[in-house]
């Protein structure tokens, strides 16, 4: 049984691009907005899955073709601030480039993050985007280990 099964509203298993096992994302409820949670065997995998969960707030990630890439680099004093920075870095790229992202390759060196995100420009007819994301917040912000040793990374995003 998944560690958050009782908390999660919906759980989707994702076949990750780099074929990492035991990695998945899910949404959790917030009254006005949506919680995103990534789970994986490494902290980097959990961060990648959290990013996928964020795309899924907007549309089905399977509809987003990984055509173009952008690089994101950030560094923060702790893992939780780093998660918020990572997601906000993606939100900025989504907004400026009017893109959605569906694949991520992320490495962590201490509290320094380097990532490539692949995606494409928003196509309203095909993606049917439900909502744009304003920002990743510190609400329900947690990074840590689940009972079965996997990493998780979560926060609420404002939509």
């Amino acid at each position, binding site marked *: 049984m998944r560690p958050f099964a009782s908390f999660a509203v919906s759980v989707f298993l994702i076949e990750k691009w780099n074929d990492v096992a035991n990695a998945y994302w899910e949404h959790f409820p917030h009254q006005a907005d949506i919680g995103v949670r990534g789970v994986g065997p490494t902290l980097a995998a959990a961060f990648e899955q959290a990013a996928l969960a964020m795309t899924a707030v907007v549309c089905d990630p399977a509809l987003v073709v990984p055509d173009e890439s952008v690089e994101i680099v950030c560094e923060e004093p702790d893992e939780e601030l780093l998660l918020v920075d990572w997601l906000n870095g993606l939100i900025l790229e989504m907004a400026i480039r009017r893109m959605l992202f569906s694949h991520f390759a992320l490495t962590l060196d201490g509290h320094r993050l380097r990532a490539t995100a692949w995606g494409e420009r*928003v196509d309203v007819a095909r993606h049917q985007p439900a909502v744009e994301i304003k920002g990743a*917040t*510190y609400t329900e912000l947690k990074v840590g280990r689940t009972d079965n040793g996997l990493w998780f990374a979560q926060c609420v995003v404002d939509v």
Partner: protein
Amino acid sequence: MDLSQFERVSDYEWRIAPFGRMRVPAVIYADQALLLEMDQKVYEQITNVAMLPGIVKAAYAMPDAHWGYGFPIGGVAAFDPDEGGVISAGGVGFDISCGVRTLHTGLNAVDLAPIKLKLADRLFAKIPAGVGSTGRLRLDAAEMDAMLRGGAKWAVKRGYGTEADLDRTEEHGRMPGADPDKVSEHAKRRQRDEVGTLGSGNHYLELQEIVEVYDVKAAERFRLVPGEVVVSIHCGSRGLGHQIGTEFLKQMVIAAPGYGIQLPDRELACAPLASPLGQDYLGAMRAAVNCALANRQVITHLTREVFAEILPGSHLTLIYDVSHNTCKQEQHVVDGKPRTLFVHRKGATRAFGPGHPALPQDLRDVGQPVLIGGSMGTASYILVGTEQGMERSFGSACHGAGRAMSRHQATRQWHGSDLVRDLASQGILIRSPSLRGVAEEAPGAYKDVSAVVEAADRAGLARKVAKLKPLACIKG
């Protein structure tokens, strides 16, 4: 929420005496049923707000309060800079100066009926809405700064509206003290082609019929006549405000310990008003207020263009424009003494009572129009500010229905296409780029706006003037 946590002051006022690190009491204005439905997080968040340095009198939650970020949505708190008072990026929120404006159309519902479909389609085609949409304006660096300094006044100077619009907008259409130099290049890039766009989520443009009048005198002054049609526009400062919120929240989280501020919740990140960071945020936040005012002004212009196209000679006049997510410098009387305070309203509407010098001359004796948005399919209301409200909540009232259900719950319960069909059968046309977005914003996902407005009225925060029924809604 467990009622035993409160002292019942009246049927509409519930007090939490200070405990722990609370500096002042917390007060929730609601009836018993609304309070019982409120999430326990509202209790946690409003008591956390009461712990912030320099808070004056009490931390308040409006009848539509629900779980937000740091502050509850529907939270109001005032801070005194001379007593170490703070300004909080979380207390303003990401969508800075998100607000509502309502315009007379000069039409009645009978006149509208034969052209409603065409109007809804043209408004949907002309006003950019939803994810990835861009406006007709693309601002270069100089124009961006001019917009951030000038607000709706900037838009009017460039032909998007009239001087009369400015008189009916908070701050007369331009928030003074805006400092575009404190707005990052990232924030400006996010906004470059977003002026005049509606956004998504709970933002909308709605045609509404005035169906009921409660306060005849105030309704006459606001020219609200049953059967007539108005247009309401709900949106904010778009990407620029979101980016400013994101950046300053982080800066304040990191800087707070250096200011000796113990944050009960990181989302309450704040800085002393008298600090460089506090002043930088104030300058950037005020620029975002101007961005929101400019945005609603340009959308007003686009709306007028559509009306003129279908009804040549039509004349849309602004009733009022209110902002929801702000921190404003205001004069308030506290314990008989006038004080300069910085009032945070997070998902709350300014509701100044009669005689306030900030009100337009022709409305000063009656009070400020308070525009309360509903959700698609449910009513909206116009209220008027009261003297009691000045005393009870620093001149503030609720801002809408407030969510009762998460977006996920809503999408599990409703399908967008069913909602569009059901609402059409009730005479309400919905136009949206996203059916999932419609489902997430289902009317049933919100609290009963009529109960919220009734509680605001009974609590003395603002007085009911008129009820509006939706006829057509363009959803972002």
